[in-house]
């Protein structure tokens, strides 16, 4: 990928992409985690201890999504997802739930942004939060009753982008 093509097509400033991230977060949290998500101003100190997952996608669009959920919120929504008490969760379930949430958010977001495209999602990986430098990345923070949630999305290749 020639460097001059990278980030040529950006998500930041794309109104449809911004609206889609907001709508998808609200719908996924409500339907499958039985909670609510509302956009809020970014204040990232909580992300240092957040549970995070990264998921890559490729096909007609290539890029990645990073999800961070504040630790307490992660336990509460995992318990809600599984119908358990937070104390009953295993470490494995905590990690799998963040991976599953990132998978659902990313899949729903991409399908809605580019319904006619051909995309493949990678396997979500647990990872520390990372602030992506440079313009072109779409980032939104949400407040949920249990804590905070942050989503960043970026496109990493331009060659296959089809509108």
């Amino acid at each position: 990928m020639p460097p001059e093509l990278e980030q040529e097509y950006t998500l930041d400033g794309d109104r449809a992409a911004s609206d889609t991230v907001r709508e998808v977060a609200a719908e996924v949290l409500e339907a499958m985690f039985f909670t609510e998500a509302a956009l809020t101003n970014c204040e990232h100190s909580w992300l240092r201890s957040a549970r995070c997952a990264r998921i890559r996608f490729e096909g007609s669009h290539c890029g990645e999504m990073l999800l961070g959920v504040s630790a307490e919120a992660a336990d509460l929504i995992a318990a809600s997802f599984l119908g358990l008490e937070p104390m009953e969760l295993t470490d494995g379930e905590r990690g799998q739930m963040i991976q599953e949430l990132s998978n659902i958010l990313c899949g729903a977001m991409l399908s809605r942004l580019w319904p006619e495209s051909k995309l493949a999602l990678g396997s979500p990986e647990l990872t520390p939060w990372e602030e992506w430098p440079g313009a072109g990345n779409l980032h939104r923070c949400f407040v949920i009753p249990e804590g905070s949630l942050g989503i960043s999305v970026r496109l990493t290749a331009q060659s296959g982008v089809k509108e």
Partner: protein
Amino acid sequence: MAYSVLIVDDSPVMRSFIRRVLKLSGFEVGECMEAGNGEEALEQLRAHRVDVILTDINMPKMNGEEFLRRLCADGVLKTIPAVVISTDATNERIVRMIELGAQGYMSKPFTPETLREELERVLGDRHASRT
């Protein structure tokens, strides 16, 4: 009369979630079995009676596409309706899975109500005659 359901997904938390949503939906579930991929699912299907299958697509060993292909090639098992549950809601993927033999397709996120409606739809006459 309750239905026996086979949940095929490589994510244990997703299998637990689907079990939970089935319960919340009010859909009458009798035996609820699980498999982590298509290969395990075919083994379960040969050993147990199953009324309906809920399957993921991206799984190790045997993915959802190959699972549906083998299911539909089996003279006995092909009569069991399969509903795909996936994060991928692109038109191409939906069409492909229906062409491979899936009777229904649900994209995540979904609610207990939409799951029940989809199960009742794919079970069609079988459901109507039982209720």
